[in-house]
C-alpha cells in the first residue's frame, strides 16, 4: 500500500489529489485546490502537496517527497502555443492542426502553401513555443517545403521546429535551416489520405518536457522528483485513450472540458465506417481526437464566446424568456472580473447558457457531417470529418461541468445541433451523460503511464451518470 499524489498546475488553480494504491486499486483520499502562484510555481505546488499529505507548510519538499509517489502536469501558461504549417489546407495542414491539438497544444495560427513575408512577420510577432512544419507526401511536393524552410531560416524565430513533411527532402530541410533547432520526424501524411500523426505528437511532447518547464520554478520540481510534467490536456487525452483498453464497455466515448479560457473536446471512436452509401471525403481522422477551442471559455474567453455564440444564445435566451441586453451586461461583468461568481438565479442561467454555447460550438467543430447527394445510382452520403454516432458516453469535466447535476448543459446544445444547416451532423445517437464528479480526469491522466489500469478504473467508477430530463 502506498500513497500516490497527482498535481495539476493550471493557470489559475493548482489542483491536487492524493490516492491510496493497494494491490490492484486506486482509491481517492483527498482532493484540494490552491491558487496557482504565478511567479514561482513551486510555492503553490508545495502547499498543495503539504495539504494532501497532512503536513504543515514548513515541511520541506525534500521530506514531502519521501511520503508519496508524485506525478504532475502543467497547463504551461494555458497550453503549448503551436504554429502549424502545411501545404494544402484540407490535407497536410488539417493533419498538422490535429497533431498539435492531440499533443496538448493550442494552434495559435496556421499557414498553408507559401509563407509570405507578412506570414513570417506574424509568426515572429506571435513567437510560438513550437512550429510544426509539414507538407507533401513522401516523395511528393517539395517546392513549397524548401521555399518555406528558407523563409523560416531567415526569420527571427527562436523556437524549435518540428519537421513532419515530405521525407524525401528532410535532409535538405535540415541543411537549409542550419541555425535552427529542427527535429525531424515521420511525415504526417506519407500517402494521400494516410494519417500518421503519432510520431509528431510524441516529438511535440518531448519538446514540451525539455523546454517549457524552464522558468518559474518548474525545473526545480522536475529535478527534485525526477519526473517530467505532462501538458494537462495531454493527460486527459491519454486517459481517454486508455479507458476502453481496460473497459471495452466504455469504448466509443467522448469528453468535454469547459474552462475559463478554452473548451476541449475529446473523442475515442472509429471515425468512419465504410459502407456502399457513404463516401468519405478528405482525411480519415484519428480514432482518438482532441480539439481545443481558444475562443470558447466561460471567463477569459467569455467575450469572444459571446460573439461566436450569438445565434445560439439569442435562440436560447428567447426560449428562457430572458433579454439579450441583460446577458450582454453579465458578459462584460465577468470579462472584467474573471473570478466573478454569478449571483442570483438569472446570472446562473446566463452562466449555464454560456457553457451550453461552449458545448454547441466545440461539438460543431469537432464532429463531422454528411451531405445528401442524389446520383444516378441513388442517394449517397458524403462524409467529411469524424463520425461520432456510436459514442455511448459523454463525460463532462473541468470546473464547471464537474459540478453540473443534470445533463442539460451538454444535452440541449447537442440536440440543437441536430438541426444544424443542411448537413447532417454525425452526433452521438443515444448517449448517456456523466460528470467527472471529483474533477479528477486530468489528475488521473498523469498516472496513466505508470498505472494505466488503476487510473482507468477509478475514472470509470468515479464518474456519475446524469439524469436527462424529458428528452
Amino acid at each position: 500500500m502506498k500513497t500516490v499524489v497527482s498535481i495539476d498546475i493550471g493557470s489559475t488553480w493548482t489542483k491536487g489529489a492524493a490516492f491510496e494504491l493497494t494491490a490492484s486499486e486506486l482509491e481517492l483520499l483527498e482532493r484540494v485546490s490552491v491558487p496557482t502562484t504565478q511567479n514561482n510555481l513551486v510555492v503553490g505546488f508545495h502547499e498543495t502537496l503539504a495539504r494532501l499529505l497532512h503536513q504543515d507548510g514548513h515541511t520541506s519538499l525534500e521530506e514531502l517527497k519521501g511520503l508519496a509517489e508524485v506525478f504532475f502536469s502543467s497547463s504551461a501558461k494555458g497550453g503549448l502555443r503551436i504554429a502549424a504549417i502545411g501545404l494544402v489546407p484540407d490535407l497536410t495542414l488539417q493533419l498538422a492542426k490535429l497533431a498539435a491539438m492531440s499533443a496538448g497544444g493550442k494552434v495559435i495560427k496556421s499557414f498553408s502553401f507559401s509563407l509570405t513575408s507578412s506570414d513570417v512577420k506574424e509568426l515572429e510577432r506571435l513567437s510560438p513555443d513550437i512550429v510544426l512544419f509539414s507538407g507533401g507526401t513522401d516523395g511528393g511536393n517539395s517546392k513549397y517545403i524548401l521555399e518555406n524552410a528558407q523563409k523560416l531560416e531567415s526569420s527571427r524565430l527562436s523556437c524549435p521546429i518540428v519537421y513532419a513533411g515530405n521525407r524525401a527532402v528532410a535532409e535538405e530541410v535540415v541543411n537549409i535551416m542550419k541555425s535552427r533547432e529542427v527535429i525531424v520526424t515521420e511525415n504526417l501524411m506519407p500517402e494521400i489520405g494516410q494519417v500518421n500523426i503519432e510520431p509528431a505528437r510524441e516529438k511535440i511532447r518531448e519538446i514540451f518536457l525539455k523546454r517549457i518547464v524552464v522558468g518559474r520554478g518548474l525545473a526545480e520540481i522536475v529535478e527534485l522528483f525526477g519526473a517530467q510534467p505532462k501538458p494537462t490536456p495531454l493527460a486527459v487525452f491519454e486517459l481517454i485513450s486508455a479507458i476502453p483498453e481496460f473497459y471495452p464497455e466504455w469504448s466509443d466515448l467522448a469528453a468535454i472540458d469547459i474552462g475559463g479560457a478554452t473548451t476541449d473536446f475529446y473523442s475515442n471512436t472509429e471515425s468512419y465506417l465504410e459502407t456502399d452509401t457513404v463516401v468519405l471525403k478528405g482525411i480519415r481522422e484519428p480514432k482518438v481526437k482532441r480539439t481545443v477551442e481558444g475562443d470558447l471559455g466561460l471567463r477569459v474567453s467569455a467575450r469572444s464566446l459571446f460573439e461566436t455564440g450569438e445565434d445560439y444564445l439569442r435562440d436560447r435566451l428567447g426560449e428562457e424568456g430572458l433579454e439579450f441586453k441583460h446577458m450582454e451586461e453579465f458578459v462584460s461583468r465577468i470579462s472584467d472580473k474573471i473570478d466573478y461568481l454569478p449571483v442570483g438565479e438569472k446570472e446562473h442561467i446566463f452562466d449555464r447558457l454560456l457553457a451550453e454555447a461552449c458545448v454547441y460550438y466545440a461539438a460543431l467543430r469537432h464532429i463531422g457531417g454528411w451531405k445528401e447527394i442524389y446520383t444516378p445510382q441513388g442517394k449517397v452520403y458524403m462524409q467529411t470529418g469524424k463520425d461520432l454516432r456510436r459514442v455511448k458516453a459523454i463525460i463532462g469535466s473541468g470546473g464547471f461541468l464537474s459540478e453540473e447535476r443534470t445533463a442539460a448543459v451538454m444535452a440541449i446544445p447537442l440536440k440543437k445541433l441536430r438541426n444544424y444547416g443542411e448537413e447532417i451532423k454525425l452526433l452521438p445517437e443515444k448517449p448517456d451523460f456523466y460528470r467527472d464528479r471529483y474533477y479528477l480526469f486530468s489528475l488521473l491522466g498523469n498516472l496513466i503511464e505508470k498505472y494505466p489500469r488503476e487510473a482507468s478504473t477509478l475514472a470509470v467508477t468515479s464518474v456519475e451518470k446524469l439524469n436527462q430530463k424529458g428528452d
Partner: protein
Amino acid sequence: MENQKDTIVIGVIGSDCHSVGNKILEMFFTSEGFKVVNLGVMVSQQEFVDAAIETNARAILVSSLYGHAEIDCQGFRELCIEKGLDPIILYIGGNLAVGKTPFSVVEEKFKKMGFDRVFPPDVDLKQVAELLRQDIKEKFGSCSKGQEAGARANQTSPKNQSQPADQISQNNNNRKEPEGSRTE
C-alpha cells in the same frame, strides 16, 4: 525504387459512384510502373488538385461514366493553373456524353476545356499508358525525382515543355514491361 516512379492521380469525378472501373485502372497503372494515387469515386476538382499538389503528381486521369462529365469538368484546367499546377497533364476517359454524340465532337469539346487527351470507354489501356509515358517525358523529362521535377513544374518555362524527348536520358525505357495487359 519508389522515388523513381511517376505519380499520377486518378478518380471518378462529380457525383458519379462507378467504382469497379476505377479499381481496375488503379491495378492497371500500378502494374505499368506508375505510382497511383486513387481518390476513388465522387471526387471534386478541388480534391484532384489538392492531391496532385501534395504528391507532386505528373498527371491527373479523370474518369466519368454517368454522362455529366462536361458539367463536372468545367474550369478544371483553370483551377489547375490557379493552383500553380500549370504543366500538369490532364486526361479524361469514359462515357463522356449522353446519347449518340460522335466521339470526335466529344474529344474536341474536352480538349478545348484543357484536357491533353480524351479517351472513349473502349480504349486500349496499354495505349493510354504508352501515351502517358510519352507525355510525361515531354513535359517533365524522364527523371521523376520529387524535388527537381517539382521545381521545374513550377517554373513553367516554355523551354522545359518543348524539350525534345530524345535528349532526355532513357531511364524510363528501363521500366519493366508488364507481362501482357490484362484489362478484362
